[in-house]
C-alpha cells in the first residue's frame, strides 16, 4: 500500500446541523509534513471541520480519509486506533483540571502504553521542554496563564508522537508575546517532529506567516486555496475583503434584513 502525499483527503462532503447546511460538497486535501491553514470568518464551522476530521461527528455524505483510511462510518475501535495518530489542541486548552501539568501530559501515555514510570517521566519532561514548560511540571492548570495552558496542552497533544496535530484557533485571546511563542512552536514542532499540522484560525497575518498552504472557507465550501503568496495576489473581491479585513464587501456588514427605512417608519402597522 503506497502512502499518498495527502494525510487528510476530504471529498464531496456534506454536513448539516438541524436543517442548517454547514458544508456543501466540500473538497479539501492536507499535504503530509506541511502546515496547512484553514481560514474563514467566524461562525462558519471551522472547528466543526476539525471535529469531522477527528471523527467526533459524522458528515451527512461524502468521504474523509486519514492516512488513506476512510473515517466515515468506521467502527469505534478503528476510529480510536486512528485517533492515537492525531493530536488536537483545543481552543481552551482542555487541560484536566484535577491533574498537574506533568500528569496531564503523562495521561495519554499512561492510558495507551505500558511503559514503566521512569520512561514516562523522561518522555513527559522532553515534551514539556519542547514547549518551554519543564519548570511548570508540578503546577496545576488553574495556576497557568492562558498562553501557558495552551502550550501545556500542546505538550499533551504531542505526547504520543502523532502524525497529525490539529490546532483550533491557537491565537485567539493571546497577548502578542505568547502569540509569537505559539506561532514559532507550531512551525518548529512541525519541522522537528516531521508531523503534519492543520491550523484553524481567522488571524490572517499570523497564519500567513507560518502556513505552507492555505484554504479559505466561506459560504459552506472552499472559496480559495493556495500558498500564502498566491493568496496575496488574489483579486477576487471576497478574498481581498477577508485578507485585508474590510468591514463591508461581498460579505455584507449588515445581517440580512428588510429595508431599513421601511422598518423604521412602518412601525405600528
Amino acid at each position, binding site marked *: 500500500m503506497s502512502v499518498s502525499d495527502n494525510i487528510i483527503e476530504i471529498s464531496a462532503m456534506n454536513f448539516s446541523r438541524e436543517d442548517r447546511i454547514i458544508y456543501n460538497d466540500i473538497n479539501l486535501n492536507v499535504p503530509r509534513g506541511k502546515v496547512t491553514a484553514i481560514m474563514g470568518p467566524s461562525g462558519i464551522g471551522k472547528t466543526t471541520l476539525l*471535529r469531522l476530521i*477527528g471523527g*467526533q461527528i459524522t458528515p451527512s455524505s461524502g468521504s474523509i480519509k486519514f492516512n488513506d483510511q476512510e473515517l466515515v462510518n468506521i467502527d469505534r475501535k478503528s476510529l*480510536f*486506533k486512528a*485517533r*492515537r495518530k*492525531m*493530536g*488536537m489542541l*483545543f*481552543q*481552551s486548552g*482542555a*487541560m*484536566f*483540571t484535577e491533574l498537574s501539568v506533568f500528569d496531564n501530559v503523562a*495521561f*495519554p501515555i499512561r*492510558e*495507551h502504553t505500558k511503559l514503566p514510570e521512569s520512561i514516562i517521566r523522561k518522555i513527559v519532561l522532553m515534551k514539556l521542554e519542547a514547549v518551554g514548560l519543564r519548570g511548570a511540571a508540578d503546577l496545576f492548570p488553574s495556576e497557568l496563564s492562558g498562553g501557558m495552558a495552551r502550550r501545556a496542552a500542546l505538550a499533551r497533544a504531542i505526547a*504520543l508522537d502523532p502524525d497529525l496535530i490539529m490546532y483550533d484557533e491557537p491565537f485567539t485571546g493571546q497577548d502578542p508575546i505568547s502569540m509569537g511563542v505559539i506561532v514559532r512552536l507550531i512551525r518548529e514542532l512541525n519541522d522537528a517532529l516531521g508531523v503534519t499540522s492543520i491550523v484553524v484560525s481567522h488571524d490572517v497575518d499570523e497564519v500567513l506567516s507560518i502556513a505552507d498552504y492555505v484554504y479559505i472557507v466561506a459560504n459552506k465550501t472552499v472559496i480559495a486555496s493556495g500558498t500564502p503568496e498566491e493568496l496575496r495576489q488574489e483579486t477576487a473581491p471576497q478574498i481581498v475583503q477577508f485578507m485585508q479585513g474590510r468591514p463591508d464587501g461581498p460579505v455584507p456588514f449588515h445581517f440580512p434584513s428588510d429595508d431599513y427605512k421601511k422598518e423604521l417608519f412602518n412601525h405600528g402597522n
Partner: protein
Amino acid sequence: MAISSIQQMGRNSLSVIAGLGRAAFMLVGALKPSGRGVKLLPLLIKQLYVVGVQSLIIIVVSGLFIGMVLSLQGYTILVGYGAEQSLGQMVSLSLLRELGPVVSALLFAGRAGSALTAEIGLMKATEQLSSLEMMAIDPLHQIVAPRFWAGVISLPLLAAIFSAVGIIGGHLVGVDWLGVDSGAFWSVMQSSVEWQEDIVNGAIKSIIFAIVVTWIALHKGYDAVPTSEGISKATTSTVVQSSLAILGLDFVLTVVMFGS
C-alpha cells in the same frame, strides 16, 4: 392557537423521549465492559471519596437529628396510650422503611448529584470530554462509569449509616433523656424489625434510588448545554428531577413491598 399548543406538546414529548434515549445510550455505553478494569479502580476510589466520603457529614448530622426528632415526637404520642415502650419500634421502622432510604437519597441528590452534574457539565464546556475523545479514550468509560459505580455503592451505605445513626439519636432522646427503659427500647425493636421485610427492603429501595439519582445527575451533566447558563440549568434540573423521581418511586416501591 389550539394546533400550535398541540404541536408544542408533541415537540416537548418528543424531546423528552429523545432525552431518555440519550440517557439510556449513555448508561449502556458506560457500563459496557471496556477491558481496562484495573485502570478504573483508582478512578472509582477517587469518586467514592468525592461522592461518598464527602457526603458523610451531612448524612450523619441529618440522621442524628431526624432520629432525635422522631423519638421526641413519637414519645409524646405514644405516652398518651401508655405505649412508650414501643418507641424503639416506631423509630426504627420509620427509619429503615422510609426515612433512611428517602431522606438520604434526597440529601445525596442535593449534595453529590448536583456536584456530579456541574462537574461533568464543566468538563464538557471546557472541552475536556472532547479532548478525551480525541485521545482515543472513551469519556463514558473514563468519566461516567466510575462516577456511576461510586454513586451506586455509596448511597446504600450512606442510607445504612443514616438509619443506624438515626436509631442511636432516637435512643439518645428516648432513653437517655425521656427515660424510656433501654431494655424495652431495644427488645421491642428487635421483636418487630425483620431482616428480610424491613432491612432488605429498605436496602433495595436505596439501591434503586442510587441508580436513578446517579443516572439523572450524570446524564444531565453529559447532556448539558456547554455554557454557564446551561450548566446551572442542568444542575437545578438534576436536583428537581431526582427529588421527584425519589418520591414517586418511593410510593410505588412501598406499595409493592409493604402494600399487601
